[in-house]
């Protein structure tokens, strides 16, 4: 059940009221969320009801075993089992269709969250929690399809806040985020995808270089608005239950270098890769291993998206780019960073276009298609015949909204919070009508839900 369906919101409304009515009775509200989590998995497929609680229970006891001994050699066996089991779960779900078993949800995001628990305990960064709390946290329904990847250690304590209620500011922020996420998804991402991006990436050789280039720019914004839209809805849904999930995006195309980009794009995933993969690689004090580690980490991140050459190239581009940037930083250590606005804009444009180049490989169905796209752009035929004025307008709005000052966002949120409840409901109704008017074919699945 994806948060683009009316069913999701019917359920969310019921869960919201039931959760807060049960909140006074402590664990009952947590139990309710666990039931809802399991219901979500069952909606994806009954096999998940066997897979997920079983894997989570094994992890729970492995974590206990790790915490029960302070000796690293003994801890290595349970942590190895946990890593193997969760990575195996990702691989199994990803490739089960080849065996005839259809598993629509890849469980990647579940597995990443589950690993934060055992790895944090192994490293001494977290302590074991109760079974109900653990199971509810690791299976939390807003994060099921595409994150944000939340550390169990950060999520678990939030279920136990005694006397916690939802302030009107938090509630308003939750509704605002859900509305914003829906608008991002339906009014921008799907519009861009349906009206040029998908066509250009399907059969690039049918389009001029100008059309293809516009399609590639549009894809950058489609992906951002799609994924950040999902993240906003997930964060807003969790916040309706008083649970704070970490931010996943921070205006990534405003980054002025590649390292900055990865601090702004899919933040929870890049943090996960950094904390649990990059930091685990050996040779930190050697001369070249840190650079190689970046490449290995990013290629692994690429291949996680799919065992396909396009994702490997995408990861490789980012890995090499990050390594080169790190090398450049090390070479000019001590030099003062330029404050020049022109240089910052130039660095931002360079970073954006490097990211854009990598997106071509990320989105293309094959390496050959990606090369066709580059070849079409390289043909220098700049006539644009397939982009309507409306499309260009939506793309321009998408770009402009990405660059609006954060103060504007804060002001909008503040105004929404100050608005009476009835008018908040009216605003949501207007948004629903706008979505109905603009969206044409119904929602496409969230791009990241397939990973």
């Amino acid at each position: 059940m994806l948060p683009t369906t009316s069913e999701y919101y019917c359920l969310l409304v019921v869960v919201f009221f039931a959760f807060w009515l049960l909140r006074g009775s402590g664990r009952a509200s947590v139990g309710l969320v666990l039931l809802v989590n399991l219901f979500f998995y069952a909606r994806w497929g009954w096999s998940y009801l066997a897979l997920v609680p079983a894997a989570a229970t094994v992890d729970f006891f492995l974590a206990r075993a790790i915490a029960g001994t302070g000796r690293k050699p003994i801890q290595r066996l349970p942590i190895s089992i946990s890593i193997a089991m969760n990575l195996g779960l990702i691989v199994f779900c990803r490739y089960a269709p080849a065996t005839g078993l259809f598993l629509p949800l890849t469980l990647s995001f579940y597995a990443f969250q589950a690993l934060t628990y055992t790895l944090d305990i192994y490293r001494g960064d977290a302590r074991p929690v109760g079974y109900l709390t653990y199971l509810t946290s690791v299976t939390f329904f807003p994060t099921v399809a595409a994150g944000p990847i939340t550390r169990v250690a950060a999520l678990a304590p939030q279920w136990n806040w005694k006397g916690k209620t939802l302030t009107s500011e938090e509630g308003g922020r939750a509704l605002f985020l859900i509305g914003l996420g829906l608008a991002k998804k339906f009014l921008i991402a799907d519009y861009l995808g349906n009206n040029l991006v998908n066509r250009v990436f399907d059969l690039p050789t049918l389009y001029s270089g100008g059309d293809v280039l516009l399609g590639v720019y549009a894809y950058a914004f489609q992906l951002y608005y799609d994924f950040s839209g999902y993240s906003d809805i997930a964060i807003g849904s969790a916040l309706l239950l008083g649970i704070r999930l970490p931010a996943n995006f921070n205006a990534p195309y405003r980054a002025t270098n590649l390292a900055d980009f990865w601090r702004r794009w899919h933040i929870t995933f890049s943090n996960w890769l950094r904390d649990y993969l990059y930091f685990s690689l050996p040779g930190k004090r050697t001369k070249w291993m840190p650079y190689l580690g970046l490449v290995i980490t990013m290629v692994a991140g690429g291949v996680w998206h799919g065992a396909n050459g396009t994702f490997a190239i995408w990861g490789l581009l980012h890995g090499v780019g990050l390594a080169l940037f790190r090398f450049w930083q090390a070479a000019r250590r001590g030099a003062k960073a330029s404050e020049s606005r022109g240089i910052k804009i130039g660095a931002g444009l360079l970073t954006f276009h490097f990211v854009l180049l990598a997106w071509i490989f990320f989105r293309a169905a094959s390496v050959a298609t990606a090369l066709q796209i580059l070849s079409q752009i390289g043909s220098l035929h700049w006539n644009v015949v397939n982009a309507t004025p409306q499309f260009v307008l939506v793309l321009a709005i998408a770009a402009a909204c990405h660059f609006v000052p954060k103060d504007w966002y804060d002001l909008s949120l503040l105004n929404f919070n100050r608005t009476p409840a009835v008018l908040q409901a009216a605003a949501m109704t207007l948004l629903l009508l706008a979505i109905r008017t603009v969206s044409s074919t119904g929602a496409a699945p969230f791009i990241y839900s397939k990973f």
Partner: protein
Amino acid sequence: MLPRKTALAIATFTLIALLAPNIPGKEHLPGITPRNVAAAFTLRMPWPVPALPPAPPAPSVPVANAPKIVAAAPQPNLSVPPGSLDHFFDALARPGATVRILHYGDSPTTADSITADVRRLLQRRFGDAGHGFLLIAKPWAWYGHNGIELNASGWKIEPASQDRAADHFHGLGGVSFRGESGAYSRVTLPDDKHTDAVVYYLAQLDGGSFTVSAGDTVITSVNTAAEEKKPGFAEFALPEGTKEVELRVTSGRVRLFGYRFDKDTPGVQYSSLGVNGAQVQMLVRYFEVGQWTAALRHENPDLVVVNYGTNESIFPEYIDGEYPDELRKVIARIRAALPGASVLIMSPMDRGVMEGGAIVTAPALEKLIDVQKRIAAETGCAFFNTFQAMGGAGTMGRWYAEQPRLVSADFTHPLPQGAARVGALFEQALVSAYESARR
């Protein structure tokens, strides 16, 4: 403790959403219906549920590698007026024969989409008599034939649908190539079994020369100079094991129209003659009749497939106006050039447009197909209704929704999987009709 303000906002919104679709006359408004609510809390049971009444059978859509048809089945999507395909069927049945098929089409055909699948399936069934026709260079970036590599440089390219040649000499395949000394075209064939080739050129007063080589060996040298302007055909044998052929203009100016590659084994040769943006009117208005007739006669096909309509389908006034007569003229010209050959009109695929939030069939498409069907019956041509064979109205929407997708997001062009389905549908219809006729 229930958070009051948020709860009130959510309750108000839910009330509006519940009421909106129930306001008389406002049923189209978005909102929550009892069906949505029920669906939200419904789980699909893993065990069998009581069966619903059986749904009407969906049209079967075979996949590309479907098993061979062992018994002829009725083909509701292929109309075969008496005698219309006899010549083609006789050729298929004749032992040791080379059966030539020309498939005229629009943009999908320019990438050998659909035609490559039909070629592969027919050749698997009846034998491989060679690749058939190929253009000299790529008029469009996506032009290409399955299994063939084509590299060329130095040509002025004039497709009949776009920058057409002023004299409307576009050869067999609808594209004219002008080259001067140094222009070349290099073809890498899918295998080394081709034994003969033809180069279609224009013999003309100030014609230059070109050579065709395989490796370091010049196979043939052709002087295109002639006293009168007329289509020329340079036929030559390929050295055994030839996989790559290079054509090079050696002097003066030459004008070429394409190649044909043959094998000395019996079977089917399926020539894909796609022109981007092509319509029936292109054949009528921009194919000079004499040179097209000469090219068709030289080719001497057993079946000509006329597969246009996608580009016409968005011009309803044209369909009501000149279209029927122009289609009749095309058939008449083919018949005049090839009195014995079978002719088949193949309808376009479904073409989708956005309407009211759904991908629906382009409004004039079915009208166009009706015209094609009527004229096929009237002129004694066979008719294959690709649109119906795919599943009829709304197929683009359904094929777009399939995973993996079968059609592009322009709701017009098939992706390789979709092309394979259409190719298999057409091939099965032909073979089924052939097997019925042979009984």
